């Protein structure tokens, strides 16, 4: 009895169920008036694809970032910069343990290490250009925080950082063995975290405010006048790459994109008329559906339903567009147990004015896999 009582209350079962119903009868957060995440109005990182979503120790992992710039004013170009030090196995796998000052001297962060991205290269730069010399690989706990502590605040970092939409790094050979053993984990693993910044300006080091808050980004995006840019002008991102000795994963495959059940010519894009209705909801909608083959719905050997049945990956799709309106930000394509979702389509409404835009279709699986389509939109 006690077990169920305790587990029930702590294990959010009822809470989540109540939350599901609560959307009907409880707290209301609808109608907030916020722009949808799918509406691209600024500099946005949409995804970063690793050629090996699950890397083996010692693997070289090649990364490719999908960046969109939905700004109306693109006077300052967007540059993607990579922090050339890969944070491996931070304390409790917390990303902020890589740079928060309290983890620099925290003995509890002994499972964290920092390695220069060995052989790290980017399309627009060279890892060898990395300015602030990071300590040697596997330099110990809270090393990134230690590095940051040695650099004067507001130092312009951009010249020293590798830049470009692609980047490569080599996974340390001991990344799995050096990770603290986690009881209950399906198998031993290691974690590498990479940080990057898509910035319409240059990057500067930002001092910590001393509040003790570990959630402080140590790098900021600044314009030529030394002012921090607006939110839409820069994004700080991270990518987690898990490593296993004996498990791998493939990125999902997108066979095609259909518009009202007809395959779209991805190069030509989608052409449609602008909306002439006075009310947006009366505009004609098209249905878009990415076609992801069932072969991409891989088995997940570490997942089961609690009754011994192996589950599969979850696969979902995120939509973004620079013009028009999408009916949903994201849709599920494959459930872990139920499989293919019958109606995964999303509705798209063209804008009221003619123009050119871009539709981004980003498909994720829940094991780090990602693939995308970039489709031109022609609104007549």
């Amino acid at each position: 009895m006690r077990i169920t009582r305790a587990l029930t209350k702590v294990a959010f079962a009822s809470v989540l169920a109540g939350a599901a119903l609560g959307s009907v009868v409880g707290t209301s957060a609808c109608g907030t008036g916020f722009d949808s995440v799918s509406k691209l109005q600024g500099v946005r990182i949409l995804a970063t694809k690793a050629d090996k979503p699950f890397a083996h120790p010692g693997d070289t992992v090649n990364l490719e970032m999908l960046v969109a710039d939905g700004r109306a004013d693109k006077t300052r170009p967007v540059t993607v910069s990579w922090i050339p030090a890969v944070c491996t196995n931070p304390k409790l796998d917390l990303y902020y343990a890589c740079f928060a000052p309290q983890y620099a001297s925290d003995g509890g962060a002994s499972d964290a290490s920092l390695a220069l991205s060995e052989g790290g290269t980017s399309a627009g730069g060279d890892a060898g250009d990395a300015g602030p010399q990071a300590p040697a690989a596997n330099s110990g706990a809270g090393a990134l925080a230690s590095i940051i502590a040695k650099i004067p605040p507001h130092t312009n970092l951009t010249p020293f950082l590798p830049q470009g939409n692609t980047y490569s790094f080599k996974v340390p050979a001991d990344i799995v063995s050096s990770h603290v053993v986690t009881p209950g984990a399906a198998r031993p693993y290691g974690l590498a975290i990479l940080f990057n910044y898509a910035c319409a300006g240059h990057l500067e080091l930002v001092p910590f405010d001393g509040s003790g808050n570990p959630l402080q980004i140590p790098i900021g995006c600044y314009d030529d006048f030394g002012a921090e840019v607006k939110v839409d002008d820069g994004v700080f991102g991270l990518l987690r790459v898990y490593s296993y000795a004996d498990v791998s994963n493939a990125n999902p495959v997108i066979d095609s994109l259909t518009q009202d059940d007809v395959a779209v010519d991805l190069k030509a894009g989608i052409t449609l008329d602008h909306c002439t209705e006075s009310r947006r909801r009366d505009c004609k909608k098209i249905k878009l559906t990415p076609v992801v083959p069932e072969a991409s719905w891989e088995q997940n050997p570490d997942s089961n339903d609690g009754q011994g049945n192996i589950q599969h990956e979850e696969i979902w799709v995120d939509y973004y567009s620079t013009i028009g309106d999408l009916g949903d930000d994201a849709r599920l394509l494959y459930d872990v147990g139920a499989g293919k979702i019958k109606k995964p389509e999303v509705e798209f409404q063209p804008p009221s004015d003619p123009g050119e835009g871009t539709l981004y279709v980003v498909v994720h699986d829940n094991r780090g896999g990602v693939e995308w389509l970039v489709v031109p939109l022609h609104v007549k």
Partner: protein
Amino acid sequence: MAPAVTRAQAPSPAPTAPDDNPGTTAVPRGASGSIITAPKDQPPPPPPAPVVVIPPTLKRDDGAEYPHQAIVDKIKEGVIVGLILEVDATGVVKKVTVEAAAGHGFDEAAVAAAQKLVFEPATRNGKPIAAKIRHKYSFAPPPSRIVGKVASDSKDKGIARAIVTVTANGKPGEKRTITTDDSGAWKVEGLTAGTYHVTVQAQGYATRESDEEVDPGTEIDLTLRLTRPNQKPVAQPGDDPLEQVEVKVDRPPREVVKRTLDQREISRIPGTGGDALKSLQNLPGVARSPGLGGLLIVRGSAPQDTQVFIDGTAIPLVYHFGGLSSVVPTESLDRIDFYPGNFSSQYGRAMGGIVDVGIKDPEAKDKKIHGLAQADLIDARMLAQGPIGDTGLKFLVAGRRSYFDVWLKPTLEATGAGVSAAPVYYDYQALVQKDFSSRQSLRLMLFGSDDNLKILTSTVNGSDPQLGGGIGLHTAFWRLQARYKNRINDATELRVTGAVGQDTIDFNLGDNYLRVASVPISTRIELAQKLAQGVTMNFGIDWLYAPYDVAVRFPPPSRPGEPPGGPFLTRPPLETHVKDATYTPAFYDELELTPWRGNRIVPGMRVDYAKNSKSWDLQPRFVVRQDLTTGFPRTTVKGGAGVYSQPPSPQQSDSVFGNPSVRSNRSTQYDVGVEQEITRPVEIATDVYYKQLDYLIVQGLGNVGTGRAYGIETLIRWKPDKRFFGWLAYTIGRSERRDGPGQPLRETQYDQTHVLTVLGSYRLGWGFEFGARFRLVSGNLYTPANGSIYDEGVGAYLPLTSYPPNNTRLPMFHQLDLRVDKVWTAPNSKFSVYADIQNVYNHGNVEGVSYNFNSTQSVYATGIPILPSIGVRGEL
């Protein structure tokens, strides 16, 4: 009368010289006995002539007054005071000497009485002489009496021809039976000091019993209010005959604070929808739960720190679907006892409060089966009860099923969700009771609850993309409970409750799951034994054994005070499958001491063992109450202190999700308060509490947490009368935690500084009743976010929250709820409708903060808007 004897015949008790040993003569209370002796200094009589000595003869004795001090000191035994009197030749008492002091004013009373004695002087051969004699006074405690009134609980109207039986405890033969007069008054006189058991029976009312301590020479004014057990009073014009309205704050016999809500109060509090446990949120010390939720946040403790029982058997779930409605419908309830802290040793394994829900005993007084049915927008319920033929058995069956799946399923499907099992819940209670006598009964009860839903959502949560897909929840429990009560004699009572049942949780979210199957077996045995006058011992065993099979696959939760490291469900999950058993035997013993009138001291000790921590928890507890006044208006001061341990939950001691080396959480609780009757129906009670928390288990770190909760609770109640009941409850409090050495002391999410609730319900007549509730509560704490970092692997923004957690408070909550009931009564049936309107003036109460996708913009998320609900009920 003292006999005249010659010295030669009998030196004793013959008259002697004053220093000789006297004889004794028994005399009744207030009278006296004298034995005369010849004074030593008298010359010996001449040998030849016989000497005839006649002792003094008592001419006048007004008797001795029973001393007031002895009444004050509650001397209950008879006392004899021996005196030596020197009586002169005129018969006047010249000197009085007490032979052995008895104290308590007896000596003074005896001397004073003796000095007023008038004797016919002693004579020797007919000549008056002085004499020294022994005299004694016997004092018996003066008789006492009980006067009182038997009244209807709802109308405060005297009940004529009620039968009052007064039996001396331990002396069954000493029984007095009286019938009340037309005004309900009654009186029993000539009682000797002691404890009396008073039983009142009146046709159409439930029998009421009471134990009264009667001191010597005192009068007890005892008003006994009777309730109609079947809630079917005869309708009178202008009077609402619906069930009795009562809010009781009984004098807690074993706790500092015990608050009792009965069925009518529960069902009529506006804004709760008549829900059983949500009614508790209107009491002091209980925080407001967000939205329609029903979390019990008691004195700053987490909801899981409060235990809920059904007639002494703990239950794993309190609400359907986390807060929609209680798992026991109000119609099946007799009462709810609520202990916000410093509870008796009979309860344990909890640092928060205790809620004990009592299921009503079946009624069969008119040998007919009665029932009711009720329906509202959420569910429908029924109840039937009555006798089982002429077997002497009574039964009650009740059940409830939700039907919002009818309208929720298409609503969910319209959003694109696949609904393979629409949300539905049901619960049930069935019991059979046999009353062997008024002292002995056996009850078997089966009760349970079941919630189920299975949904496949095709949308994806932007902040945690894996929070989508298949969501399944099945929670269920049942208990088969046996309860045996036997008042073996006036000094001994035995209560035994045993239960066996099953708990089931089957929850999945994507590829994460929690599956629990448990078979709890529990026993609670309590023996109440009166050891001496004013000394009762309660010894109990509280035993729980629950084999379980748990399989969990979930990411590790964040530690308290630690910001999340990313979307929760994207972290590598941990998996564990454990087959083990919870074993937590406990023993407790406490004394109820009533050393003097109006006082009650309850020292107690509870010892708990927890198998998962392999340790014993020793928990001394102490409660004291003192009535400062006798009779109306009562003033009571009270206080308590005690240790309360809460063993680690299985997940806290689990090797994967917790730490196997943890031991019990501990709280040390203090409470002082005062209760004051203002008028007959109005009482005010204030408590100051302080709860020190130690050895709190922090996820993954062990017993490193500390904390405290403190505050003041005030309750002003208008007890139910013919028309009205209501109260004002105000709590000012604080709840703080420190998640380990060196960590900041932070306020918890359970901290609500001010909680004010004012409610009342008034019977307008002609079957109408109108109620209102207004609440004014501090906003909840939250942790603001400002900006975000983008997680490129899952396509989600991670909020950058401020520090420390819970550093900002939402705006104050205020809300008015109204309720109107209308009842139509026929001779053998009743029909009622109600409308319950929450948030009448549609205030946008802030329950949280909503952020845009990258946490750079925010707006308040508001709770329920104006929300009317209606229901209908029929009763036979």
